[in-house]
């Protein structure tokens, strides 16, 4: 440096220049992430405590008619697992969860991509994208139930379906509840994906644009790999919540007609709250928990891989 670069001046007195700097032992540095997580762990333990109690119920014969329960081992599980109604519920739950999550993911990504073009239409819609999420699902379901009503509902009126089209008939009820789920939660996926999209570095896209890559190529090869972590987080949350779906279904059909929309948690509700058979309800919920657990476990491992791949794609 020809001029007097500051660096060449006498080093000013800084703390580092004085005495021995404090030493942080290795074990304390190793401990750091754990320390940061301690409060979270505390919350986990505190809040999962009732959950363990619920699990414990599943091994008792506790119900209103039997308030002095004893341990019955796996009796509840045997009885629930041999009940065809339970397996109907598993099928209904799985259909609901996978169809709803799948459609919401595809729609959510599509909407996010469309909004990300930042056209004028997009900019206006972006402001209202999240509106359906602002209506509590319980209320949203009530509103939709009113709209579905064949006698005075607005849907049959506007769509010209007359007074005889039953949205919640045995054949249609499941799909109609999924429709309501889509309406409420697609914005959730879209907003997560949109936030992720906006956080992507732009250089790789510019580079491949210069290389003359097509839109679809960029989407598949660049954007999707980088977006997977964000998408998967949305999918994980949606799938978990869908597997546990209760409120929308309960308001719209209470699990009917027959058992057409009797999801697992609706079944658990029937047992625990309507029938006051806590142990059977807990067994249902524990089995549901296992199902959610397994699905989440799998998705999280996929997420881990996606994150490593995304890191690769970006780095």
């Amino acid at each position, binding site marked *: 440096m020809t001029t007097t670069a500051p660096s060449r001046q006498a080093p000013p007195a800084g703390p*580092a220049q004085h005495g021995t700097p404090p030493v942080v032992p290795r074990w304390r540095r*190793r401990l750091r*992430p*754990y320390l*940061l*997580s301690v*409060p*979270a*762990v505390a*919350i*986990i333990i505190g*809040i999962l405590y009732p959950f363990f*109690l*619920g699990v414990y119920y599943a091994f008792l014969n506790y119900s209103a008619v039997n308030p002095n329960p004893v341990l019955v081992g796996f009796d509840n599980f045997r009885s629930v697992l041999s009940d065809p109604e339970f397996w109907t519920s598993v099928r209904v739950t799985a259909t609901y969860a996978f169809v709803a999550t799948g459609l919401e993911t595809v*729609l959510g990504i599509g*909407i996010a991509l469309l909004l990300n*073009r930042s*056209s004028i*239409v997009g900019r206006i819609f*972006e*402001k*209202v994208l*999240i*509106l*359906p*999420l*602002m*209506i*509590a699902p*319980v209320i949203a379901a*009530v*509103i939709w139930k*009113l709209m579905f009503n064949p006698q*005075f509902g*607005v849907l049959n009126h506007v769509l010209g379906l007359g007074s005889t089209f039953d949205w919640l008939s045995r054949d249609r009820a499941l799909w109609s509840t999924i429709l309501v789920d889509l*309406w409420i939660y697609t*914005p959730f996926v879209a*907003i997560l994906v*949109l936030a*992720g*999209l*906006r*956080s*992507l570095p732009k250089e790789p*896209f510019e580079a491949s*644009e210069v290389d003359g*890559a097509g*839109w679809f190529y960029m*989407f598949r090869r660049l954007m999707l790999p980088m977006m997977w972590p964000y998408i998967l*987080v949305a999918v994980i*949350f949606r799938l978990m919540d869908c597997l*546990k779906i*209760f*409120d929308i279904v309960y308001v719209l059909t209470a699990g009917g007609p027959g058992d057409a929309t009797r999801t697992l948690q609706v079944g*658990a509700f029937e047992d625990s*709250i309507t029938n006051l058979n806590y142990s059977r309800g807990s067994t249902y919920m*524990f089995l549901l928990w296992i199902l959610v*657990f397994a699905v*989440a476990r799998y998705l999280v491992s996929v997420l881990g891989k996606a994150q490593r791949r995304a890191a690769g794609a*970006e780095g």
Partner: protein
Amino acid sequence: MATEIKPGRKRLTLGSVGADLLLVFWFVFSLFPIAWMVLLALKTDTEQTTTYFAFSPTFDNFGTVMSQRGTDLTSVDFAGALVSSVLNCGGAVLVSLLIGIPAAYAAGRWKYRGSEDLMFQMLSFRFAPELMVVVPLFVIYNQTGLFDTTYGMIWVLQLVTMPLVVWILRSYFQDLSAELEQAALLDGYTRRRAFVMVALPLVRPGIAAAALLAFIFAWNNYVFPLILTDSNATTVTVAVTKFLGGGGQAYYNLTAAAALIGALPPLLLALTIQRYLVRGLSFGAVKA
């Protein structure tokens, strides 16, 4: 905008119009029920199920919801429910952020033993069906005096907010180059200050998204406040459903009006937060 991936302006005409049409299609579907709720909220008791679009609109329902008549119908002061909802959900999100950000940071920044397990635990909050925990919780709350209190709601809402906060933020922290904070350390800042000065502002969109979604989900939660509160800490959502009434008198118009009023706080929050949401994580040059 960080990623304008339409190559060039060539396709602007046809592709762009088509895309806008798709958007319009979605938003008609998305907004119609809300528009219909607004109409419903403007109808009188007799019009609520007998008219579609032609009726004489009135704003009385909004007034009724907030008035003593609303309180008589629901046993809850709606304005009070709004306040406790804001306190419950705001508090819950705040606690989740305070506790969740360090945890998300730790999980996103370091691969340490058990980090994946811990993260999975956080997620597993959401596995348990609410009905499974709510009966034991009810007893515990009554024994500990948390029943029908804001503190109790903040605590139980962690089930809703914490996993969202931690899991959304972890992705952001993972995406954030560690070298930025390292540069700050070498600039002479402590880890905490480096975190606050460098990492935190950069994950702000993530924090905004997580906080907003957590707030909304907490706001919309129904089973917990239904069981764990009465009139002191009860929330807007529970209060809204009370307008559905019973005994053959259902006030759909009041329910819609109440739901719309009840959607205002999260809506205001969303509008405030929106500018953080659209700002990208990378201000352009996080990565080389």
